[in-house]
């Protein structure tokens, strides 16, 4: 063929398809046709436009084949390692692969991995219509079927509630003092959470409309009938004070209760042991606190949590601290003492301590120096010219 002889030149025959020789033969028999047009095409045009293709799509059969291969491979791997194929878990797979293919690469994601295809191939939306092409959902052609179907359902419930209200009025049983839904301590789901629930993207305006519709549902007298539905869209707010981890009360051989807690501030790490039925002695790193902290400000920091709960003379404090400077060490010790105190103190007191800021770790650290500047914030001398 003409094309095979010269690379990079593709001759596109105008009318008669393949071979040039055949072309000459048939040409003489018919009416004179248009001549062959040689169009030279460079190899750059043969390259696929990868950007236009979008993310790679995998067919269902391909994914199913991958799942089959994974299952078979898992059994082979179990046999290789001498383990039971039936009870071979993902952790065992990871362990075996790390053993068989030891990799010194730092990037964990670059190391050899054997996981279920569900975790490797990105999830694609299932086809939304049946074999005839008819979509499954009746609001498919709106583009946002889950969102609009939700609005439709909520409005349906509002209408049903109005009908119920009318029925009650007709029977003379209508009262405005009906059971109200408890809404304190919960909030509406955020836009991101709604998007996750609907598996669809919605705009801010759409989200606002949805919340307005739910509020309308809540404003009706008989809204308690749909309580379960409404609470699906509300998230309980966690009580902040319940998040604190209270250290366990431990007992000495002598029967003295004590608790141990840690604290950190800048790079200072402190560990405190609070012993009950003491007399207010504070020992840090084996030395008396008066010797260790000559500055009054640091000693005040140590005393603040005990003074706040009013148990200054009750405890014996034994602490060890290392790193950073005196002020940071004092701060670390204060946090450790407050945490240790949690096990001796009531729930209400815990909340008070939290509000006083005793239980919050100070997040401030030394800001890094940036290039082109003297320090973190200080700039070099500015010269006008």
């Amino acid at each position, binding site marked *: 063929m003409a094309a095979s002889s010269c690379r990079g030149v593709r001759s596109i025959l105008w009318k008669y398809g393949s071979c040039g020789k055949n072309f000459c033969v048939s040409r003489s028999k018919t009416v004179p046709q248009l001549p062959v047009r040689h169009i030279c095409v460079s190899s750059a045009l043969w390259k696929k436009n990868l950007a236009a293709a979008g993310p790679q799509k995998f067919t269902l059969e391909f994914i199913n084949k991958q799942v089959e291969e994974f299952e078979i491979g898992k059994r082979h791997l179990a046999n290789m390692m001498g383990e039971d194929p039936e009870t071979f878990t993902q952790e065992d797979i990871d362990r075996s692969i790390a053993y068989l293919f030891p990799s010194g690469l730092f990037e964990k994601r670059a190391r050899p991995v054997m996981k279920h295809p569900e975790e490797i191939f990105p999830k694609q*939306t299932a086809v939304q219509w049946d*074999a*005839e*092409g008819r*979509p499954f959902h*009746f609001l*498919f052609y709106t583009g946002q079927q889950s969102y609009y179907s939700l609005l439709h359902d909520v*409005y349906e419930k509002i*209408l049903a509630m109005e009908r119920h209200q009318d029925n009650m009025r007709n029977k003379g049983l209508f009262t405005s003092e009906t059971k109200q839904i408890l809404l304190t301590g919960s909030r509406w789901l955020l836009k991101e959470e709604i998007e996750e629930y609907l598996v669809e993207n919605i705009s801010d305006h759409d989200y606002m409309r949805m919340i307005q519709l739910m509020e309308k549902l809540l404003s009706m007298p008989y809204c308690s009938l749909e309580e379960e539905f409404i609470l699906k869209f509300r998230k309980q707010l966690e009580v902040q004070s319940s998040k604190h981890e209270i250290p366990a009360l431990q007992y000495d051989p002598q029967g003295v209760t004590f608790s141990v807690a840690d604290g950190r501030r800048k790079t200072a790490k402190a560990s405190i042991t609070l012993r009950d039925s003491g007399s207010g002695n504070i020992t840090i790193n084996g030395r008396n606190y008066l010797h260790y902290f000559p500055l009054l400000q640091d000693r005040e920091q140590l005393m603040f949590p005990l003074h706040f709960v009013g148990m200054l003379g009750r405890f014996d404090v034994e602490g060890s601290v290392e790193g950073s400077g005196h002020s940071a060490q004092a701060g670390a010790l204060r946090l450790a003492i407050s945490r240790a105190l949690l096990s001796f103190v009531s729930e209400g007191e815990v909340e008070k301590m939290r509000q006083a800021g005793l239980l919050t770790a100070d997040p401030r650290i030394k800001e890094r120096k940036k290039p082109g500047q003297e320090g973190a914030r200080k700039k070099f001398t500015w010269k006008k010219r």
Partner: protein
Amino acid sequence: MAAGVLSGVRQVLRGPRLVSAVFSCHGQTLSSASAAVKSAPDTAATEKILNFPLTQPDYFHLSELFTMKDLFEARVHLGHKKGCRHSLMEPYLFGSRLDIDIIDLEQTAEHLQRALNFTAHVAYRGGIILFVSRRRQFGQLIETTARECGEYAHTRYWKGGLLTNAPVQYSPGVRLPDLIVFFSTLNNVFQQHVGIRDAAKMNIPTVGIVDSNCNPSLIAYPVPGNDDTPVAMEMYCRLFKMTINRAKDKRRQMELLKGISASV
């Protein structure tokens, strides 16, 4: 699939109608279903099932669904004020009384009969019907009607390229509606609904309830009538639901008979 649905229907039903847009072929659906139907084995029985209803003027007996008195009692004849009148609606108006335009119910009955007949034939052949309206008063009613007859509805904000840019708006290989029924041809700012123009661009036939302030030109089967009163809208919804259900039941019946006769 869509080509098979509508090509036969249009040849018979077009008749002496003077229609503004000529639909040569409805070939814009981008699914493989259309190709599949053409290659499907066309036995004599299937052909008979599909073609026989097209030879009858009122195969589904839709004339018994409504009378002119029903239309009058549903206040379908009430149009808007004389100042709102669209000049192209004048042939459909009976006159005006106390400044309110009265729609000619004889013409309405005729148009409605034709529209329902077309809808029934489309539903019989398994076409996708989309109900569209931008009136918030009746959105819920129309969506419920669509769900009950197994068809589709769009009573929300109409995004730009839903019909004209379908593979991007939905997914590649989506099948577009074969018929769009407008329960109100205007949108919320009293302009013509974008769907009418888009359907005409994509060669999708439309049925529309046109009030005295609407433009009936791009609609294939206009039905002059009131689109503001709840009674009228409920009547239209009921009528369309009954026609579609009737047509689908008839199709199921014919398929069953075919199955029985084939096994015999």
